[in-house]
């Protein structure tokens, strides 16, 4: 490995060191690495990460975000950035505002003759997934199906529209598939579009739809209809020439209400929160309304950060992991809110500093053992026991004005 890479390793490790010590820390490691034989340098440089982490852990807490306004400002900025990206990136935007036209319904198991007599101005028919090539299934669809679904397709003699999963599983997500000519049922068909991976599915479970003229469906073929109907109607009737009436149940083709689903996932993560952190905020006077407003504001800001942040990041790296990431992100976010609240002064809401270990670990059960934190404005001391139990909780010791000369 070259000297440049070793230097990059050291510079990477230096980012972990506190900013005020970084320059001297890096100078020392750069000087030391000069003495190490080239074959041992990589291992030597990896040790720098442990050293930098040690230095960070044992440095005084950074002063930034100590004030509640700075904390809220930082969270607001983060929420705004994640929201901005959610509107700018195509996939999160589509998930939040699905482009599916309103008022579409599907009818299953309808014969093509009944489809032709439907008293509906806009309706499209597609057959069952009957053309098979290995485990790839294709169904025939009338030419107006994708106009109704608002999916643009390029013009071709026999256009083929693939489902997202079909394109990914059968063609490995080949980005150059559009325009390629494939043989479907002995007939050449050109790939004209790929149905985006949306949260609604056409019934029938076809991997692709070959667009044909609506008149070419054989009489008696049963399939599916997509139609534009008044959403309040639950069925549609077809009157046959012999006077009989056949009713078909209409199922709305609606997108899943993703914001609601995501909020539900976040609600579940709030339920499991007691398993990962204590819900207790310690022994504080309950009348500090400002403190509760601050806590609520943090929760309100963390929600969009986690929601939009997860949508943004996982739409770029692994879209199918979004719900899982949202759950984990919510748990981490809520846990941070509670932990942050616990380590703030209940009076001025600034982060408590100067942690000091009190007592001895060997006497945990006999004497008080834990950490004491201090409000730099002299409002009081926070006692955090090392082991929380029913008789030893986080306790706030208020300092009166006689202590003010020390601060």
């Amino acid at each position, binding site marked *: 490995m070259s000297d440049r890479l070793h230097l990059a390793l050291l510079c990477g490790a230096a980012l972990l060191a506190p900013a005020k010590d970084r320059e001297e820390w890096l100078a*020392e490691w750069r000087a*030391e690495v*000069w*003495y190490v034989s080239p074959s041992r340098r990589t291992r030597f*440089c990896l*040790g720098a990460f*442990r*050293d930098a982490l*040690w230095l960070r852990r*044992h440095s005084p807490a950074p002063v930034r975000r100590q004030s509640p306004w700075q904390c809220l400002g930082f969270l607001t900025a983060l929420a705004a950035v994640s929201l901005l990206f959610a509107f700018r990136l195509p996939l999160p935007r589509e998930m939040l505002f699905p482009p599916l036209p309103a008022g579409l319904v599907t009818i299953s198991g309808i014969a093509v003759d009944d489809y032709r007599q439907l008293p509906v101005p806009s309706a499209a028919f597609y057959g069952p997934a009957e053309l098979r090539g290995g485990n790839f299934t294709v169904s025939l669809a009338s030419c107006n199906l994708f106009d109704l679904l608002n999916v643009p397709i390029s013009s071709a003699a026999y256009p083929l529209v693939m489902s997202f999963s079909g394109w990914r599983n059968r063609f490995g997500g080949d980005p150059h598939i559009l325009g390629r000519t494939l043989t479907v049922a002995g007939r050449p068909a050109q790939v004209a579009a790929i149905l985006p991976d949306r949260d609604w599915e056409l019934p029938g479970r076809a991997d692709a739809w070959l667009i044909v003229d609506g008149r070419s469906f054989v009489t008696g073929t049963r399939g599916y209809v997509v139609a534009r109907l008044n959403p309040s109607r639950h069925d549609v009737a077809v009157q046959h020439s012999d006077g009989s009436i056949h009713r078909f149940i209409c199922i709305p083709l609606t997108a899943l209400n993703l914001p609601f689903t995501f909020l539900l996932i976040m609600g579940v993560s709030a339920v499991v929160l007691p398993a990962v952190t204590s819900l207790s905020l310690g022994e504080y006077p309950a009348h500090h309304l400002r403190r509760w407003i601050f806590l609520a504001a943090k929760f309100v800001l963390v929600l969009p950060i986690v929601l939009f942040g997860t949508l943004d990041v996982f739409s770029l790296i692994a879209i199918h992991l979004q719900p899982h990431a949202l759950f984990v992100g919510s748990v981490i976010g809520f846990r941070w809110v509670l932990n942050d609240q616990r380590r703030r002064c209940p009076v001025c809401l600034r982060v408590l500093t100067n942690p000091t270990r009190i007592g001895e670990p060997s006497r945990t059960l006999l004497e008080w053992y834990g950490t004491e934190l201090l409000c730099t404005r002299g409002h009081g001391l926070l006692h955090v026991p090392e082991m929380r139990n029913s008789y030893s909780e986080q306790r706030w010791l208020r300092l009166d004005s006689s202590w003010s000369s020390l601060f």
Partner: protein
Amino acid sequence: MAAETKLSHTAAMILQAIHAGDGYGFSVMEMTGLPSGTVYPAMRRLERDELIRSQWEKPSIAEAELRPARKYYKLTRAGKVALEASRKRYPLISKLAPIEEVEQA
């Protein structure tokens, strides 16, 4: 604080190495055989506990020897007391002695 009672074997070895050797990080590594990820954090902890202190050598000395300037560590008075106590507790650390410096290949 009774510093001598808190010294681990590793910390005692590092104190002995600083005392017996050239007193910079890599020489301590060479003498003790400990990896860099152990030696440097331990030296920072010893410096924080005021058992050792550090000082950069003059650039002119390093330039004359065509090498980068070293950060030297020395035992403080408390460090010497702690080392003396550790030698009684870990008698073998007195046998730690400097080895020949590995030159730049």
